[in-house]
């Protein structure tokens, strides 16, 4: 048992965690209703919305922790009426708060070790790829690609173009893809990859994935896929400055067909199954899309904040009246 200021800190951390889990649960329910509406927004707005969405539980749980801190220590009686915490200066490790705290620490350590392990393996493979590739200055090859910087050419028959590397992202292209594309198609592919490079999409994806670790599987995957789709569509849109949507869409389908011919070599999991069709559709029939809904977002955040505060207070009372502490 811990008593005093340390107990207050541990209780506040427990409150923050409880808030974090409740917010994730509430968001997972809301996701079922709003996921289809996302398509109405422009890719940039969708990216911002998704970033706000995944950051929201962390920001709001911090606000909630601060609220409880003021309710416990401050002279604000009104706050105490909205939500309050019993035994603020006593913390038992063998209580449900203790189990919540220790479970959270164990989960975070497990998840972070997985992320670090993947990062190390990924970085090692990229270093080896760099050693075995040739740097090509693409601007010298084409007058129509002034915005495209260097890329790494890989001697492989597999058709692939991708940006990899979290801290120092680089663009990779295989000979297998390069020799089957026209100069214009190659320029489209490189400009798309350049867009990923300049936006630091690999890092952005990595951080986004980290923020998603507490969502249950049924919402985690679609949230991440929506984000990946938004990033791809933003990169597609940047190519539209120098190419038509039809040309970009046609190149996308051509590359997908080339990759299909290598299906036996890749172990497919059907990731992004809908991405190509959705991206083509966006490119050839660009309609008016909604922009970031600031007011609705603020109202939703306020609603989430107050529902979570009430749920924390209610669940605390419920658990402690049903079970011994």
């Amino acid at each position, binding site marked *: 048992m811990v008593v005093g200021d340390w107990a207050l800190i541990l209780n506040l951390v427990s409150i923050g965690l409880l808030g974090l889990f409740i917010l994730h649960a509430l968001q997972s329910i809301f996701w079922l209703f709003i996921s289809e509406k996302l398509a109405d927004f422009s890719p940039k707005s969708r990216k911002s919305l998704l970033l706000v969405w995944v950051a929201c539980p962390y920001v709001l749980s911090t606000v909630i922790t601060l609220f409880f801190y003021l309710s416990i220590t401050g002279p604000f009686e009104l706050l105490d009426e909205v939500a309050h915490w019993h035994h603020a200066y006593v913390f038992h490790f063998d209580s449900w708060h203790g189990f919540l705290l220790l479970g959270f620490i164990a989960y975070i350590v497990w998840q972070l070790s997985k992320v670090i392990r993947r990062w190390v393996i990924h970085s090692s493979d990229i270093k080896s790829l760099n050693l075995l590739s040739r740097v090509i200055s693409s601007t010298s090859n084409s007058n129509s690609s002034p915005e495209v910087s260097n890329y790494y050419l*890989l001697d492989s028959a597999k058709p692939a173009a991708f940006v990899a590397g979290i801290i120092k992202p680089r663009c990779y292209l295989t000979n297998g893809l390069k020799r089957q594309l026209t100069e214009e198609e190659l320029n489209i592919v490189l400009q798309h990859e350049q867009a990923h490079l300049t936006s630091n999409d690999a890092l952005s994806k990595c951080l986004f994935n980290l923020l998603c670790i507490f969502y249950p599987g049924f919402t985690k995957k679609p949230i991440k896929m929506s984000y990946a789709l938004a990033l791809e569509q933003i990169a597609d849109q940047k190519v539209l400055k120098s190419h038509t949507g039809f040309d970009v869409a046609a190149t996308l389908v051509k590359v997908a067909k080339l990759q299909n011919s290598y299906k036996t070599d890749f172990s497919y999991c059907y*990731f*992004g*199954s809908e991405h190509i069709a959705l991206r083509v559709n966006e490119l050839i029939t660009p309609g008016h899309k909604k922009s970031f809904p600031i007011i609705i977002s603020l109202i939703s955040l306020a609603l989430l904040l107050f529902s979570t505060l009430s749920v924390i207070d209610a669940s605390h009372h419920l658990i402690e009246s049903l079970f011994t502490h």
Partner: protein
Amino acid sequence: MVLGELEKQVLQYLWAHPDSDVKQVHSVLATQRGGGTLNTIQSTLDRLFKKGVLSRHKKGLAYYYQAKLDREHLIAKLIDNVTSDFISEGENSLIAAFSSISSDLDDSQLEELENLIKQQRKARG
């Protein structure tokens, strides 16, 4: 799998001259910048063998090494490794690809998309 600069040089030599022993590798690499001593080359060959990149057999007292994969296949393997996050864990991908590498759209569905693009292009003049 991480390859160092010297490991790359050793591999390149073995791609050009398969079935070589440490002295043969060293005789060529020693003339290059950063080629290393005989002991360094021996450790590099051992390391590559342990990483599964080289195979070896004994002739007399010496081991003779050869690359298990040629340059193109090694690159293909590394691309697979880098993109395997993309493929096996999908949403956890750390890469951003022009086309999503795996697609459940088969060729006929992709042709439909192609036709749609042509139709729309025509309709817009």
